[in-house]
């Protein structure tokens, strides 16, 4: 089973490299080739996820060296779920990306997929940085793809802020390597208990800021609101759907492994909770006043990231509620936001304007369906995943006696409901009968709607049967260290493993 995990990373890379040859045949074959690749990786990721759900976590070893020596991938059920959903949305975005993009666009998408898959699975600190760089660099290029005035401005801002952030992250890695002498996450997490308070604090803040810029945490997410609307719509669907989530995933995993010893749990939890609330409240209030449709969706993405941060912070003290909320919010946002951006983006491209009143002139029927289903599920209307995610989050927040916080969060959630419903109803009540550029778009939108509905029904069924979702959470420190390598056996002496 470990081979499949590696293929999900190696195949898109191979596809990216070979894209020039396929590009000679033209853009449509390139799109078909990348759709095929992402379909294969989705199937592989699905099989990996199934085996993870049944069995225990997997450690994939590279170059034949046992974990502390070489680089290793670590896959727990949550990583498997994240991997599978990332590949699903990538496949649907590639299909739903219409006919206007060159073979280079699809090459970059394949490399982005390889980078994201590696980022989710990686178990080595510098390896996380390299994959993070791949994802950042490809996102810079894809945001500025159109080279219009607006995309260049967004690309430049994103480039500068992203580069500064990744340099800070590299600085944190340097400090950690200097202190511990190793780059393997499990070993660092084992050694991190003995870090002095000031060192641990500075490294925590450096990693939080370094990865926070890319994952859209409150004060650092200014680039997000320029980049998503300016990017081509499949890219903004991917940026909102998987890229900022994967950056958040890595941030939470690193924080979970390095900084959660007894004393700091409270402090780390409260910092993340505060940042989550700030991200959510500011993003939703500002999003409420947006006339530009895609920009409003970008604000909603930042808001959902805030919710996920809060869910993780709650999960530290109440794992049964917090981690379930995190998983549900992630899946819901991935499907709903991916679908919304794919449909709203295509519709506003066809109608030429992104203003709330004029963007929906040429809405095809599948756009309307996704507009309705996506809007409802994102807002947390009953039958969808968002509803259960919101319920789990509110239960969790109340369980840790954060009453005022629940009041604020729910009041602001009404704002989000209003401006998202403005977009959905603008699409629903659109008069014109639009046609999509290619059948692939309609197919991907229908698949997304069915996934959302299916997930909703499954959730209702799951809650009734009381299915236990607690396995889908970040593996706690001790268990992570034990599965990756046996601490006692490795004392830094000679350990030949040819």
């Amino acid at each position: 089973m470990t081979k499949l995990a590696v293929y999900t990373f190696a195949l898109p890379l191979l596809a990216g490299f070979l894209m020039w040859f396929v590009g000679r045949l033209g853009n449509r074959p390139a799109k078909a080739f990348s759709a095929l690749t992402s379909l294969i990786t989705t199937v592989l990721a699905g099989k990996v996820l199934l085996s993870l759900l049944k069995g225990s976590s997997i450690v994939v070893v590279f170059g034949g060296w046992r974990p502390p020596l070489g680089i290793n991938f670590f896959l727990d059920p949550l990583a498997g779920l994240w991997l599978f959903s990332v590949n699903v949305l990538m496949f649907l975005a590639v299909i739903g990306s219409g006919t206007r993009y060159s073979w280079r666009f699809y090459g970059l998408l394949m490399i982005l997929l390889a980078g994201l898959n590696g980022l989710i699975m990686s178990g080595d600190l510098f390896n996380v940085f390299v994959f993070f760089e791949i994802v950042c660099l490809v996102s810079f290029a894809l945001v500025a793809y159109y080279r219009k005035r607006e995309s260049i401005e967004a690309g430049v801002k994103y480039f500068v802020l992203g580069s500064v952030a990744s340099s800070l992250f590299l600085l944190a890695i340097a400090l950690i390597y200097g202190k511990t002498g190793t780059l393997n996450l499990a070993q660092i997490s084992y050694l991190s208990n003995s870090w002095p308070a000031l060192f641990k604090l500075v490294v925590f803040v450096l990693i939080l800021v370094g990865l926070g810029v890319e994952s859209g945490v409150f004060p650092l997410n200014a680039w997000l609101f320029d980049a998503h609307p300016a990017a081509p719509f499949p890219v903004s669907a991917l940026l909102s759907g998987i890229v900022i989530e994967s950056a958040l995933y890595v941030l939470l995993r690193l924080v979970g492994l390095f900084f959660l010893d007894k004393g700091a749990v409270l402090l780390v939890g409260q910092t993340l909770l505060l940042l989550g609330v700030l991200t959510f409240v500011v993003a939703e209030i500002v999003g409420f006043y947006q006339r530009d449709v895609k920009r409003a969706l970008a604000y909603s993405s930042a808001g959902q990231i805030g919710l996920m941060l809060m869910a993780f912070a709650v999960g530290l003290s109440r794992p049964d509620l917090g981690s379930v909320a995190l998983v549900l919010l992630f899946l819901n946002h991935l499907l709903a936001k991916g679908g919304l951006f794919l449909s709203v983006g295509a519709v506003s491209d066809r109608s030429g304007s992104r203003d709330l009143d004029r963007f929906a002139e040429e809405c095809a029927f599948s756009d309307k369906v996704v507009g309705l289903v996506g809007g409802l599920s994102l807002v947390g209307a009953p039958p969808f995943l968002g509803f259960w995610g919101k319920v789990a989050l509110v239960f969790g927040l109340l369980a840790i006696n954060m009453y005022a916080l629940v009041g604020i969060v729910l009041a602001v959630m009404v704002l989000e409901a209003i401006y998202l419903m403005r977009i959905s109803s603008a699409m629903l009540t659109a008069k014109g009968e639009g046609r999509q550029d290619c059948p692939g778009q309609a197919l991907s939108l229908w698949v997304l709607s069915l996934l959302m509905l299916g997930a909703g029904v499954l959730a209702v069924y799951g809650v009734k049967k009381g299915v236990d979702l607690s396995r889908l959470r970040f593996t706690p420190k001790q268990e992570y260290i034990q599965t990756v390598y046996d601490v006692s056996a490795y004392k830094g002496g000679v350990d030949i493993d040819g």
Partner: protein
Amino acid sequence: MDRLGLLFTWLTLGLAGLQILFLLAGDRYTRRPWPILGILLLTLVLVGLYSTKDMLYFFLFWSASTWLTFILSNNPRKAFGYLWVSLLGEFAMLSAIGYTYAVTGSTALSSLAKAGPTAIALFCLPFVVKTGVIPFNFWIGDLYTGSDKRFVLFLSAIISKLGVFGILRTVSELPSLPNLAVWQNLFIYLAGITAIWSAFKAVGSEDAIEALSFSSLSQVTFIFASVLLWSAVSVSGAVLHYINHMLIKLGMFSVVIYIWRKIGSTEYTAMGDFVRRMPVSFLFFLMLGISLAGVPPMGGFNSKWLMYEAFISKGRLLPVLLFFVAGVGSFLYVYRLLHSIFLGRKKASISLVKEMNPLQIIPLVVSGLVSFLIGAYVKPFMGLTSRALTGIFDPVTITKTSIGLVNLSLVLEVFGLLLGVVVILFWILLPKHRYAPDTEGYTAAAYLPEQIRLWDYSYNFYAPVNRLGKAFVDLFSLGWLAGFWKEYIAGLGLVLRGLYNGRLATYGAYIMLTLSGLIVALSLLVSKGS
């Protein structure tokens, strides 16, 4: 599914069936699939709502009904007021459920009592919002007038009264009656004021649907207040009036929607003298009007009488006065409805109208007859409501009133006899009637021209009443609240928008400030903590 849920399920299914029959019997526009499927889905959701005893599922179905109403109303611009206020209510309910889960670990409705009075009050907030009592009454007019005509009947008959069922279900599930006297009284008086406010609104409106929707609000707040009173007589009177109101609105709205399909407008000025073309509809519309006004021979009187009886026996005279004034208001707008639609001056639109086809008229006939039956022979219906309320209250037959023991059903039967006399009189006089000649002689044309607004004496019929209630109505229409929102809350948004001023240097400063701010703050906390 307990007996209370069963009653409400049958009522909703019955109404939905009749409404769908009315839509199917209509023309191609009303026969379109999605409104009918929407109503069926909404009925399914409501059946789920009636059947569950678990707060989480109650919240699931309640939220589903809110969202379905928003979508089925098919006019988002007008329905946003409804959406955001009911979402606020729902989130109050969600936090109540969360708090109970945190305290007691279970989300059963009965465990709400252990969570304390504030949780109960929060849980019941959405019921108050959905009923439309004073602070939450600004969305009623927009939603009803703006809503899709094919859905407004179901909206006003069932959805407007979900709050009533909510209170019934919640309070009946709690082991002991919560000591929420303060909230109870507050909302009874607020309901009274809302009843008067909506009566004035209905009286002053120039549109049939607007009049009917505000009349619904006035009746529903009366039901809501009497349920809040929570005595055997008041609750069974409320349930009876629930049934009556549902029937009345079913019949009246089907007529108004039929007319709307024919002449394309629901303004009073566009209608007039339809009795010539639609005599049967006029007959049943008259019966329902009488029942709405609460005049003895029809069912409306019995249920209103029970509710008044309950308030008086509890010695609460001020609410009785408030609801009585609202009752007087109902006389006015019922007459206005009857007059402007069927008896007023003939308009050019009369040629478009003809009697409903036999299938379409069934809902009207059914509601007229059942309401008549409730008026004439109330015993089976009283049995129905008391069976539904078994376990909560003992059956209501004998009640002690200020003038000693009174057998309610006996009293109502006496009025039933009175009804028999009226029917016989109507039967005798019917053949002798003759049409009053058109006396408006001074216009040469056969029909009055369209811009009759200036001459049609029925336009702004109750000008003195409107002038009297103007200040009162404006105060409680909460226009000033919208102004407050625009001015102050919107200001907060502008401040936050200023954060993202688009300059790269500022964003860079954000990164560094976050970095240093977190380091300083955390190091202080750590040093203070350890």
